[in-house]
Each structure stands twice: as structure tokens, then as C-alpha cells.
């Protein structure tokens, strides 16, 4: 074997070992670091936040809930295909009877959220009080959660952002959705959409603790017939709809 041939072999051998090491090392070494992330510590698991939406009270031309959500969370309010919409008004017409229904649609805050299951980095997570959120620092913008969500509840931030609200952090290139106004809930307030709906005189959105048997929402869910969207999927959503 010539010296040159031997050098070439040595070079190939060493560089292959280096490349193999560099490829494996991050995955192996950093795997353990992934398990120390505390999530949702201030929230209590005794609470399960949810909503009951009475579709019989929801007016078809009204979009006060959408406007309130946009204002509370600093969303521009566009309705183009690349605009973020955390809540939307959906118009339904029963194909058999022709009955028309209007309702607000947003993240259903599932107890078994598919978005949390599929998220590669754990950016999508569920707080112990049932609120499903996205950690904007961990979201890499792969959009797998958007593919997995059965309710099309999530939006991707397609453009650079300006004038963000300090208590609602957002980020270009990340995914976001209804946070159940977590910043308000943590202050002991109701959600912006529920508040706006009440102010508009409809009272179609009832927000509260599903775990508390004495809460207004729990009492009402016991009294009236309500359904959960795509209940066949077994996701145990936090949002209930009445009148569908």
C-alpha cells in the first residue's frame, strides 16, 4: 500500500468517525436534558376550565366575541388565508331540515389533545387546569399540530409581528391558538369572548370550572343537552355546545 493511499484511508477513517460522533452526540447527550422542563406549575389540577356555548343564543351576524379576542390578544383581525384567527364564527345549515345555526369555534382545550401528542418538542402542552397552550420559545414552526388538530383551531404566524401585547407573547414562524385568555383567567377574570358576548346581551358563552359541581357551567351541563364536537374521537374536550 502506498503512503498516499494509506494517508487517504486514514483521512477517510478519521473524518467518518468525526461525522458519526457529531451526528449521534447531540441526540444521545441532550436527550436527558429534555426531561427537566417544569410546565404549568402555578395552575391547579383541581380546576378544569371549560365553556358551554349555547348556540340558540348565538346571533348569526354578531362577531363581538371575535373582535374582543382580537383586541385582548393583540391580533390584527384579518380574515385572509394566512391571517391568524383564534376564534371564528361558523354558520351551519342542516342539510336535511335547513335549520340555521351560528356558533363560535376555537381551540376545544381537549383533555387528550392530539396537538400535544404530535408536537416534536413539547411546545404544545396542556396546563394542569386543562388549558392547552403553545410555548413560543419551544415551537419550531413545523405545523404538525395544525395537521393533527381535528378542529382546525390553530394558526401559523406567517409575517413579522408588530405592537404585541406584553402579556400575550407571540412570534413569527410559530403556531398559536386560543389560550382561553389564560392571562385573564390567572387574574381570576373570565375570557374576553365570554365577557363580550354577555355585554352584547346574548350570554351565549358560559366560562367556568368543569370540575366544580357547584359552578354555573357544571350545573347547566347537568340540566341541558349539550354535545362536544367530534366526541367520537374521545378527546374529552373542555368546550360543550348546546342546541346542536
Amino acid at each position: 500500500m502506498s503512503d498516499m493511499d494509506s494517508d487517504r484511508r486514514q483521512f477517510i477513517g478519521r473524518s467518518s468517525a468525526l461525522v458519526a460522533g457529531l451526528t449521534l452526540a447531540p441526540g444521545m447527550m441532550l436527550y436527558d436534558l429534555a426531561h427537566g422542563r417544569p410546565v404549568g406549575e402555578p395552575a391547579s389540577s383541581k380546576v378544569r376550565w371549560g365553556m358551554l356555548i349555547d348556540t340558540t343564543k348565538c346571533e348569526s351576524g354578531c362577531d363581538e366575541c371575535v373582535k374582543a379576542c382580537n383586541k385582548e390578544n393583540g391580533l390584527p383581525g384579518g380574515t385572509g388565508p394566512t391571517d391568524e384567527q383564534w376564534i371564528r364564527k361558523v354558520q351551519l345549515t342542516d342539510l336535511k331540515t335547513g335549520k340555521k345555526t351560528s356558533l363560535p369555534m376555537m381551540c376545544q382545550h381537549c383533555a387528550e389533545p392530539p396537538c400535544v401528542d404530535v408536537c416534536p418538542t413539547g411546545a404544545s402542552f396542556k396546563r394542569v387546569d386543562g388549558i392547552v397552550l403553545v410555548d413560543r420559545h419551544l415551537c419550531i414552526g413545523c405545523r404538525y399540530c395544525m395537521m393533527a388538530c381535528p378542529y382546525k383551531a390553530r394558526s401559523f404566524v406567517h409575517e413579522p409581528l408588530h405592537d404585541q401585547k406584553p402579556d400575550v407573547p407571540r412570534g413569527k414562524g410559530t403556531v398559536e391558538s386560543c389560550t382561553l385568555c389564560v392571562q385573564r383567567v390567572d387574574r381570576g377574570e373570565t375570557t374576553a369572548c365570554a365577557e363580550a358576548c354577555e355585554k352584547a346581551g346574548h350570554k351565549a358563552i358560559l366560562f367556568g370550572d368543569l370540575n366544580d359541581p357547584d359552578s354555573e357551567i357544571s350545573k347547566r351541563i347537568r340540566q341541558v343537552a349539550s354535545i362536544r364536537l367530534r366526541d367520537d374521537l374521545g378527546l374529552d374536550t373542555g368546550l360543550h355546545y348546546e342546541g346542536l
Partner: protein
Amino acid sequence: MDTLVRKQKELRNFYLLVVFGLMVAMTGMGAAHYMEEHGHIVTGMNNQVVWGMPHVFAIFMIVAASGVLNIASIGSVFGKKPYKARGPLSGLLSIALLAGGLTVLMLDLGRPERVIVAATHINTTSVFGWNVFLYSGLFSLVAVYLWTMLEARMNPWTKPVGLLVFAWRITLTTGTGLIFAFLVARQAYGTAMLPPMFIVMSFSWGLAVLYIVQAAMYGWNRMSLNPHVLRRFRNLLGLFILSVAYLVAVYHMTNLYFARNSAFEHFILIEGGIYPLLFWGGYFFLGTLIPLVLIYSPNLGKHCHVLLASLLVVVGSFCFLYVFIIGGQAFPLSIFPGYEVSSTFGDGQIAYYSPSLPEILLGCGGLGVAFLITTVGVRIFEMLPHDEAAAE
């Protein structure tokens, strides 16, 4: 003197190819930079069609990266000599395609600079999370596999390492199929049919890519393919194309049988505009029927026909993926069965998607990366299959 001139000419052509590959790859990188600066608003993707053209390119390359190893597996695991001679090329192409596919996938992220987050925060319930290990593992394993094939001292290890690579890549392609199979609410996906379908597609697409590259190498060296080897490759490609067609047919037939999915099938196969056109014209006619005619017609089946069939299989695979990935998202989710639905967020509507130049260039950039790795790898290592000694 003639030899010297020829070698110089060869070297010049090699550098020209490298420059070409670099230019394509750099254009892709430029497109990715443009997308990162402006956001995904400059792509055709939106909140309804969240995965677009980059995913078509990336998934083609990742699936083919697994399938192209079939040749090495048949050679080292089952000891077939004509395949053994192509083992190193098969390994190199696998690394090249995987690198190209992952480049596109990473650069299409909303936050590509956070790619390290994907390696440091693994959600163990996520199939994407598993794929971080499966992809990096395949890189390393195939590198070791190549070492055992190219280094005489390591040859005894080729078979056990080959077996491990075989198991790993089947798992990897299962993982790629599961990305879609785990999407429970979308009519196009959410079926256990997808992992086996992706595995068989990987065999077909991988073999087609290997045949194309091999043809280019033989053309470069003014060699012709051994007729015995040609016959084997031709039959194998035919078998794989038929197997893919069978699984694709079963996938659609199953959907057609379920009443809840018949509207989706009607859309994707008949009324959906570009999607039925690409499915029937691109995947079925160009990517399946014509290749089968080229392979099985008594008067055809020569090297040029098999090469054309391979090229058409690649074209068909892009058409199939476009329909599968984009068509699957364009059809509205069934959230309110029994109702006519409308909203400002595209509920009940067919979503519109038109690929933009930056995302197409990013996809091509991934192909450029794969091309570059292949061109340089073939030059550095001894990759040219010699059949005089290998033919049985």
C-alpha cells in the same frame, strides 16, 4: 497522452457538475433565507394547507433514501452478487437523499434557527420526535455500513450491519408513514395502510433513483449495463411499481367503502381539479402505466426503456405526493357532519394552494444537496459497479 487529455477533460466535467450542484443548493439556501426573513407569507402555504411543496420534495427524498438501500440489503443480507456490487452506491445515495430531504424539512420550519430545540426537547409521544432519532441513526448506521463495504478488513461485518440497517430503514419508513397515519381527524390520512404503503413506495422510488444514477455513471465511463443485471433490475422495478399500485388501489378502495370518506374520494379522484389530474395523469398514467409498458412489453425493456421508466416513476412519485399531501389538506375537515358549513377560516370550503417560487427553489435546493453529495462521493470512493466479476 490521450489518456491524460481524457482525464483532464473528466476532471473539468467533474468540477462543472460540482459547480452546478453547488449553484442549485445555494439557490435553495437563498430561497430559505428569503422565507425566513419575510415569513411564510412568501410561500403558497397558509392556515389551511400548512404543508406544501417543500414537504413534497422532502418526503420524496426521505422515502427514497430508505428504499435505495434495498439494493445494498439484497446484496449483503441475501448475498446476491449483482446487488452486492451496487451496495456502496446504494449506501451513498441513501445518505445523499436523506441529507437533501432533511435540509428541506429543516429549512421550511417556521423557526429554522431553533432546529437544535428539536434535538434537545424530544416529546416521546411524537412520531416527529422518534424520527429525530431514526434519521440521525440512519445516517450513522449507513456510514458504518459503507465502511464495512469499502474497507476490506471490515467486510465480515457487512452482513450483520446490513441486517441492522435493513431493520432500521423499515422502521424509519414506517415512521414516515405514521406521520400521516396518526392524523386521526383528516379523511386522507389516519389509516394503518400508510406505513406499508410508504415502505413499498420507498422500494420503487429508491430503485428508480439508483437506476438513474447508475445510468449516468455508466454513461460517464462509456460502459454498458450487463444484460443479466438489466433483466434483474427491470423485473424488480416492475414488481415494485405493481406493488405500489396495488396498495394505492386498496387505500382508495377502503376510503370509498366508508360512506364518511366517499366525498373526499370523489374530490381527490374526480372533481378536485388539479388533484385528480395529477393522480390519474401524473401518478397513474405517467408514473405507473407507461413504466409498466416500457418494462413488460416484449419489444421494449432495454436499458433506455428502463431508464425512461425510472424517470417516469420519479415524476409519478412527485405527482402522488402532491395529491396525497396537499390534496389531503385542501379537502375540508369534517367537524360538523350533516351540515353545510361556512366561516371566515375556510370551514367547509376547498382550500386554495398555489406553490410559490421560493418554496419550489427550496425543494430543488434539497435535490441539489443530494446531487452534490452523490457527485463528490462517487468521485472520492470506488462506487462504480463492476459486473464482469459480479455477474452470476
